[in-house]
């Protein structure tokens, strides 16, 4: 396991509010979080707690309503669309629940795709990186195949290779096993463990405690806030009691 000496990610008082016609929804309320370089963090919590929103903001797919976000010592909370694209390309590797491979591109081209968006990278270097990434996930033998020709587990391995190919600072995984059966899910988790062991920083959203247990640290969210594990159990119990009481009263 790599030695953790500095924060790769640091967020402070982060809030995210969604506005519809008449309703304000506070998805995140004053979140503080730091992730050290080389750390493996799992984020969990009940549906609607804000974990995917937080991951989207960490991945610069979305912007916070308020608060500070520092990635690799750079303030990134208020960057414009083009700068966020550039940093995403260089610093972040995504692994999605539904793989999000492009069906019209071969395995090779899917993995190469983020590298083609990186200016100045020679074709020979791209090829080298793609082959290495595919070898790393044991998918080098399928590089001419198309996503539709692969199983779900294989597709997710290709997605991991795509995330790795650009040598990002952090891998962000959003329910990476959500669309896989248990066997393939376990295989992907083993792969993430190996990557972490080799020094990758990983932040994974999961609702499955078995997979969350693979991480160095677990972060629990409830109603848009990070809570301690004990507190989470208490809050969940309280919420259940409130629901039960309300139901009895209504009857």
């Amino acid at each position, binding site marked *: 396991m790599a030695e953790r000496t500095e924060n790769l990610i640091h967020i402070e008082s982060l809030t995210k509010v969604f506005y519809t016609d008449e309703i304000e929804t506070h998805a995140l309320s004053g979140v503080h979080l730091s992730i050290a370089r080389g750390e493996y963090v799992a984020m969990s919590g009940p549906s609607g707690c804000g974990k995917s929103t937080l991951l989207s903001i960490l991945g610069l797919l979305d912007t916070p309503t308020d608060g500070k976000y520092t990635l690799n010592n750079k303030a990134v909370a208020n960057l414009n669309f083009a700068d966020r*694209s550039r940093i995403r390309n260089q610093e972040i590797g995504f692994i999605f629940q539904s793989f999000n491979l492009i069906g*019209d591109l071969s395995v090779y081209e899917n993995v190469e*795709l983020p590298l083609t968006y990186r200016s100045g990278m020679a074709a020979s270097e791209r090829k080298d990186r793609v082959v290495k990434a595919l070898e790393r996930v044991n998918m080098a033998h399928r590089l001419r195949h198309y996503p539709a020709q692969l199983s779900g587990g294989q597709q997710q391995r290709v997605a991991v290779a795509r995330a790795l190919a650009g040598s990002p600072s952090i891998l962000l995984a959003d329910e990476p096993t959500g669309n896989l059966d248990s066997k393939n899910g376990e295989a992907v988790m083993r792969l993430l463990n190996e990557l972490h062991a080799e020094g990758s920083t990983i932040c994974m959203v999961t609702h499955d405690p078995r997979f969350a247990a693979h991480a160095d640290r677990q972060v629990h969210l409830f109603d848009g806030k990070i809570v301690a594990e004990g507190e989470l159990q208490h809050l969940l119990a309280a919420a259940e009691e409130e629901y039960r009481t309300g139901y009895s009263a209504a009857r």
Partner: protein
Amino acid sequence: MATFLGTVFQDVRYALRQLRRTPGFAATAVVTLALGIGANAAIFSLLDQALLRSLPVREPRQLVLLEGTGKAWSGRTSGHGGEREMLFSVPMYRDLYEKNTVLQGIVATSTGAVGIERHGETAVQDAEIVSGNYFSLLGVRPALGRVLTAADDTDNAAPVGVLSYDYWHDRLGSDPAVLDETLRISGKPVTIVGVAAPEFRSAVWGQTPALFVPLAHAALVDPSQADSEHNHRDRWLNLVGRLRDGVSPAAAEAGMTPLWHALRADELAAMGSKPGGFTADFLTNSRLHLLEGATGLSYSRQRLEKPLLIVMCMAGLMLLLAAVNVAGLLLVRSAVRAREFCVRYALGATAGRIVRQVLLEGFLLGFAGAVLGVALAPMVVRVLSSRLTDPGDPLLFLPTVDGRMLAVSFALAMVVSLGFSVVPAIQLRKPDLVSTLKQQGSTSAGRGLNLRSVAVSLQVALSVLLLVCAGLLVRSLQNLRHVDVGFNTEQLLTLHIDPELAGYPADRIAPLQRDVLAALSGIPGVRSVAATDSAEIAGSDSGTNVTVEGYTAPPEEDLDIGRIGVSPLYFATLQEPLVAGRAFTENDTLDHPPVAIVNQSFARHYFGSATAALGKRMARGAGNKLRWMEIVGVVRDARHIGLRDDVKMTDFTPLAQEKKAADVTLYLRTAEEPQTVFRDVTATMHRVAPMLALQHMMTMGDQVDRTLADERTIGLLAAAFGVLATGLAGIGLYGVLAYNTAQRTREIGIRMALGSSRAAVSRLVLAEVLLLAGAGVLAGLPCALLLARMLRSQLYGVSATDPVTLASVAMLMLAVALVSALLPARRAAHVDPNQALRSE
């Protein structure tokens, strides 16, 4: 740079693969664009050839057309259709040519028909009478032998001619033996000394002469020009000059003015005494203009200009419609591919890269559309050209692909591609990454929905524009076809003969005409035969001013009276009824008192009524030496020049009392359809006059139809555009409805789960289509009214705001919209609510 090109190449490769993987979409888009680009390329080719393209001669920009304004010396002007102010007499040309010091040179040209006899067969062909310096000044080289020279253009020179390349190639099979061969041209021997360059047809655009003959031998083409060298009155030559290097037309015009005025003064002196007003108009108010002449002269350019511009506008609308159609397809496609683009963004693609990808795909579609369109264009040009060209003549427009057509087509393709790609590209610039990436399905709605609706309504609006134009033009054509010309065009055969072209001497022509009329009358199935020197509904317009005994014309009256020479039985054969008096008889010859028949308009104007005209005297021209003719009959008004032309006051005289009536048009009234006697007519004519070529033998119905060639071609094109536009709009409506209905499957499932009937669900789809089409119709109709104003000059018997056309178009579009909604409505009505609610 290499990296940049590498990524561009990658994007191109990906775009090509995208198109290959969706062949239905790609084919629809490419064919749609090809139709739009092909139509524009073809119409542009016509427009370019007729109006824009320079003559294939040396330095065409140095050419100027000479135009002399001011009062003209009364006399004959050329009948070939050129503007009168651009016609000059031979002496005026010779003077300008010899005394001019401003221009490099001046050439003279005129056209006419000749009979070319080779190997015992005579064919009537167009010929161009040209000055000896014609080829050298224009810079046209020979393809074979030599071109005409100044030495050929003298009275003493042996008659020689140069063949056009088209005639030599098409009719003589490029036979080199024709060089130095003596052909009989209108019965006279002419030695062929060369063949003109292949790219050169004539200095007059639209003319395709078979033969060029020197001006000094103009009588070969037109025997009446035998004394033209000294005849100041007859103006029948067009003049083309060449500017010296670096001299502008305006400077040259100023330089030529003193010479022009001096020559006009000489002409005035030669005329003798004239009133003061005439002198002022003839001399002081006369100017010589030098007009830019790079595109050459043309007798048909003016006729074609407006229709071609209208059709070009319609083709432009068609292309716009095609572009909007493809934009609609791309909007649907980009909605389907939204997730793919979001993944690209998530992986670090910039908006510029995504926009470039979308634009590249659009450009590839545009390029493929242009390639197919350019391949189609020559076929369209050939079809249109054959409809606009007289049968038997070389095609007026060449159906070839040239650099200009290619440049315009690919430029249009690029502009259009940018147009239809930019909307989806803009739409993809700032997508909602988070929600799109979270979707399990691969499609998303979003604001593209509104743009797609706008696109489809725009297509309906453009279709309305094109359909209204098509409707008005087709109705005009129908009205023209049903015009009452004033005589019976059914069971009437027409043909033209010109004994002079076959070499008959002047004293043999009148007897030959009598023999022909008699022989044709004897054909079984022919009821009567007649002849005229001015064919009906064929654009012939020979006019003169008249003096009517006892009638004092108001000072401002300057009436142009039509004059037509006819044989006995003419009115009976045409079934053009006499309303008073008698018809001409065999006795109305030069040996008998001159007589005339006038039409009702003439009689009304000069005498108040038809009966009042009988017995009165009239004469052609004015002055003291008048040849009085007694009006012996009044005939019902009939159209003579063309279907659009109003009835003109006309006097008819017996052909036998005309001094010169060599070429005549014959009319045969038949008992059955005229085609039944074609073979007998040909055989009879061959027996009576074996050397005589039969020209333009056809039914009168065909003749009338031929005069409508322009209207029919424009109507046909407009109708084709209208049908295509309606089809595209229908496909566009169907596409959007099908997509929207698929997107609403879950909503429809919920509605049905809540108790909605199938009919109610169908009504949802039908309401949507009526909204989209209705918006298009409402937007299109006011624009169509504006556009229709442009068409006014082409309309006949129908107003530009014709409510029947507008209402029909609106109803048709709504009907098309409803038909296009049937399948989506049926699909919506058959949604399984159980399945729809379970699906994402």
